[in-house]
């Protein structure tokens, strides 16, 4: 057995792996984050930047509670990242909207809000439905289109700048003495004495524990250490407009104005494999919906469009799990790496440094995907 330079090796330098790495380093662990490089799919660099709660956990209340915990831990993380790195992640927990078009959308949204609140219990979402007048009062500078019927409003959510976040987590990791290795495409992960050997083309890294958090790169490596990682890609296309004077004081799902003034419109949900192309159909659909919500957007130039691939488990909820055949090997899979960055930095590292996972992570065990026994 060779000497271990690290307590923990994290495979994946996106927002999930970097948040975990930052968290491990702040617990005093010697940590290395291995980042594949620019050939990776990099969901962390193409996302919408919401810190979101109101739609999380429909069908799994534990995920709603997990997301709520994330929103509660966010302000302290943002403050700490600014102090430690000088990078402002532009966190704004203004509350967020899901704007409805037509009576049917409003009715369905109201029913879902009620269902999720009943399942999760009080004090998780606090989402409430707004009529057109209440919505208008929250958006005094927006002339809403005639099809807008109302919205759901959750007071605990908001947005960050996702690129600044990734940058801050990586800078913070290094400021804490952690190591970030870019261009490290992992070829194999294997048991090595009591720890693990992670082999890249340019050498082998040895660590006591290994955490796989490489998005769509995870399944290939997970299979090497007995970890299930059932994920599929779902394409999301996004449009961004030129900068405008501030007019949206809080974000809506699929429509938010950034601190820079640009307006992001998103995002499609398409099952098209690993195809990151943009399509006229997808983008026209996004633009058409945005214009029904805010008709004035029809005259605003779109300056860029792109697509990224969400990381979706079979039920869309996260997976946190320790390998049964290879204890000390862990996986972290989720599609809401921005929202969950705070729990990934504050809660998961401590859990993964112990021997058994704490109860708070029970609901995220992948056994839920197994065929259920009947009778």
């Amino acid at each position, binding site marked *: 057995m060779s000497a271990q330079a690290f307590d923990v090796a994290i495979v994946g330098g996106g927002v999930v792996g970097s948040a975990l790495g930052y968290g491990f380093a702040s617990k005093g662990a010697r940590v290395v984050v291995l980042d594949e490089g620019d050939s990776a799919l990099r969901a962390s660099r193409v996302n919408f930047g919401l810190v979101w709660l109101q739609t999380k956990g429909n069908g799994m209340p534990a995920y709603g509670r997990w997301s709520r915990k994330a929103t509660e831990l966010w302000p302290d993380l943002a403050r700490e990242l600014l102090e430690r790195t000088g990078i402002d992640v532009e966190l704004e927990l203004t509350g967020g909207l899901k704007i409805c078009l037509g009576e049917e959308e409003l009715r369905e949204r109201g029913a879902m809000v009620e269902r999720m609140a009943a399942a999760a219990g009080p004090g998780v979402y606090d989402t409430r439905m707004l009529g057109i007048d209440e919505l208008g009062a929250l958006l005094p*500078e*927006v002339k809403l289109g005639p099809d807008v019927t109302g919205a759901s409003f959750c007071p605990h959510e908001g947005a960050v700048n996702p690129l600044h976040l990734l940058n801050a987590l990586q800078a913070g990791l290094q400021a804490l003495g952690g190591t970030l290795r870019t261009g490290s495409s992992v070829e194999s992960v294997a048991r090595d004495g009591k720890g693990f050997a992670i082999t890249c083309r340019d050498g082998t890294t040895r660590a006591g524990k290994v955490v796989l958090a490489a998005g769509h790169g995870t399944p290939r490596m997970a299979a090497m250490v007995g970890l299930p990682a059932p994920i599929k890609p779902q394409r999301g296309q996004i449009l961004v407009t*030129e*900068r*405008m*004077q501030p*007019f949206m004081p809080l974000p809506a799902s699929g429509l938010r104005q950034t601190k*820079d*003034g640009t307006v992001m419109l998103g995002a499609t949900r398409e099952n098209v494999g690993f195809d990151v192309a943009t399509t006229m159909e997808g983008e026209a659909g996004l633009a058409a919906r945005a214009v029904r919500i*805010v008709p*004035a*957007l029809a*005259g*605003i*130039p779109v300056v860029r469009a792109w697509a990224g691939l969400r990381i979706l488990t079979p039920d869309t909820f996260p997976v946190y799990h320790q390998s049964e055949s290879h204890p000390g090997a862990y996986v972290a899979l989720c599609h809401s790496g921005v929202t969950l960055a705070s729990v990934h930095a504050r809660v998961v590292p401590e859990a993964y440094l112990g021997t058994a996972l704490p109860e708070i992570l029970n609901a995220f065990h992948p056994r839920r995907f197994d065929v259920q026994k009947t009778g």
Partner: protein
Amino acid sequence: MFRRLDETGAAVTVYVEGEAVTVRAGDTAAAAALLAGLGHTRLSPVDGSPRAPYCMIGTCFECLLVIDGVGSRQGCLVEVREGMRIERQKGARVVP
């Protein structure tokens, strides 16, 4: 400051910040703004600094103008038209 190389083309009158300017058919709105001696033609939405047309081939986006009331148009890609109104783009546009 600018010397016209090609004097062909019919005369066209446009209004740059309200002042009538005679240009030639085929000129661009950005060229008209330069010929009018406008100096800076926009204020950056990032830091408010004054900017003026630079590449004149559609690449740099420094020539953003309000043309006939429509904001943030690339002036170097828009040909003049009789009576066209050309104004500075002052910072980020306002959502109407």
